[in-house]
């Protein structure tokens, strides 16, 4: 088990190296002078020279990459070209809204999608099943920013149940926090709900045809225990897998949701940095999100063993 975990961690190192290399080359291989791209149109020759020296652009590519990755490994992500603050400080300031959004959204997703999928599989080919599948296809196809604006229009502007936009920190009380985070978290959750409900249904349909389910029913267990203890537990692996691969949707969803709902989180920071071509910030954010994605999938791979005792490494 421990050997397996170690092997998986080792296997994710080349992935992160490729990510770093790609981000590195993206700037260097872009047509034109990277220093000019960073500095923008208004840069003076002196500024250009300074940027070139700071980035080590006068060095060979390989040397540049080694120096740069060395700095990353020591936690030096450089500083923002715009605000001159260290990138990690900037990210730290924006962490809370994004984390809150992601966590609340994840909780909503799990509470809604798994029962939906179980119900659809249990009542296979019924009206409920069709309804769940229809919601799932709709949720998967309607873009987050469309869902977001519909939610704002209906629940915030027409019904006045929630504030229109913005973010309130949890330190200002749980009530106001939840009231502000509810709509953006729901908008972010829709696509994830659709994906997981669908996968839960498919996995449950597979499992419900097994002999041990018939046995469990035959020995008189209640339907609830059959469904949740026997069937869902055996359907856990594909559901977990899709939670992991779908996490990429969550990351890109955060970027869009924060823009629609005006949440000052990492997503806004990313868009602002990209529009301002604040390259150190862009680099750090792409590395960070890719790292989180890799880590989440690593955790999920490892958790298979705990969810399904049949899996042994």
């Amino acid at each position, binding site marked *: 088990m421990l050997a397996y975990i170690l092997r998986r961690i080792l296997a994710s190192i080349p992935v992160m190296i490729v*990510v770093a290399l790609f981000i590195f080359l993206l700037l260097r291989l872009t047509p034109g002078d990277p220093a000019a791209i960073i500095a923008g149109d208004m840069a003076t020759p002196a500024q250009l020279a300074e940027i070139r020296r700071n980035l080590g652009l006068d060095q060979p590519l390989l040397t540049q990459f080694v120096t740069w990755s060395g700095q990353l490994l020591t936690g030096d992500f450089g500083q923002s070209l715009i605000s001159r603050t260290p990138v990690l400080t900037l990210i730290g300031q924006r962490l809370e809204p994004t984390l809150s959004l992601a966590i609340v959204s994840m909780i909503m997703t799990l509470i809604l999608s798994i029962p939906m999928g179980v119900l659809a599989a249990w009542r296979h080919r019924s009206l409920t099943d069709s309804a769940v599948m229809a919601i799932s296809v709709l949720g998967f196809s309607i873009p987050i920013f*469309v869902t977001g604006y519909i939610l704002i229009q209906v629940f915030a502007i027409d019904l006045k149940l929630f504030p229109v936009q913005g973010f309130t920190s949890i330190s200002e009380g749980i009530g106001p926090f939840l009231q502000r985070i509810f709509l953006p978290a729901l908008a972010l959750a829709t696509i994830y709900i659709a994906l997981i409900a669908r996968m839960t249904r498919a996995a449950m*349909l597979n499992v419900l045809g097994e002999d041990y389910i018939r046995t469990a029913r035959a020995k008189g267990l209640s339907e609830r225990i059959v469904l949740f203890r026997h069937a869902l537990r055996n359907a856990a692996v594909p559901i977990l897998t899709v939670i992991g691969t779908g996490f990429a949707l969550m990351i890109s969803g955060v*970027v*869009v949701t924060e823009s629609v709902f005006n949440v000052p989180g990492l997503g806004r920071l990313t868009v602002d940095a990209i*529009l301002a071509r604040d390259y150190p910030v862009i680099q750090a954010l792409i590395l960070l999100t890719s790292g989180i994605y*890799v880590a989440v999938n690593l955790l999920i791979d490892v958790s298979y063993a705990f969810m399904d005792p049949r899996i042994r490494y």
Partner: protein
Amino acid sequence: MAEHPSTAATGPGAKPVVRRNFLPRIGVRGLGLAAWIAAFALALVVLMALFAPLLSPYDPIAMNPMERLADWSLAHPFGTDAYGRDVFSRTLYGARTSLIVGLGAALVAVLIGLPLGLLSGFFRTLDAILMRIMDGLMAIPAILLAIAIVALVGSSLWTVLVAITIPEIPRVVRLVRSVVLSAREEPYVEAAITVGSSLPKIMWKHLAPNTVAPLIVQATYVCASAILTEAILSFLGAGIGTETPSWGNIMSEGRIYFQLKPSLIFWPGLFLSITILAINILGDTARDALDPKLGKRRQD
């Protein structure tokens, strides 16, 4: 788009091996009501895109300061935007942008992904290197990668297309590779190797046809995903410039007037959702029809 399955059955890439498997499964009866509605909706969007210059009452980029943010009227069915441009005309032209991006991304992703996947399934060393690169690419969130590329290279329709296609390629490569890995164990491939067929011939004649069905399904998802990504990029302000109308940039410009004029978000959002929905439904239909094994496993 709506003719995906039949194009596959008659297209030059479909060899008898593939045809025997799925031709009988595709028929008028085989398609559900949802698939028909989806095909009809998509056909409408395609017509909108093709005949945009004939259908649109105004020049989509002609500004008219006298009629800023006008309401719904016979002259402007969807109203006008902040520059007095006719939103109906812009929405019609937006269909063009979306379909070009969607079809272009699907086509390019397949054209690049198919050969890479075929080679990767055959050569172990290349496979090891290529798969690490693909893993790395897949770990970068598609939207971040795309906006970063657009921001660095500049925003034209073509850079947006390239930026959207790059993150889609690994999925195609992985799919083709997995098909090749299982197909190369088949007796007919071993036979071809034994009688000394050349490698390109084995790949093209014996392995590539196996990938047609899964690629058609994958291409529909790439298409839907590319249309969505383009809209998101334009919406965030990192996409195609507003001189080329796209559903995303109409919405992007409508954002600040949202509380005043929800229609600026509503109409392009509606068309965008319908298009993506229709493509996804057709993709699901194609998947169920083209992959008998999957259909059985899903027990639908």
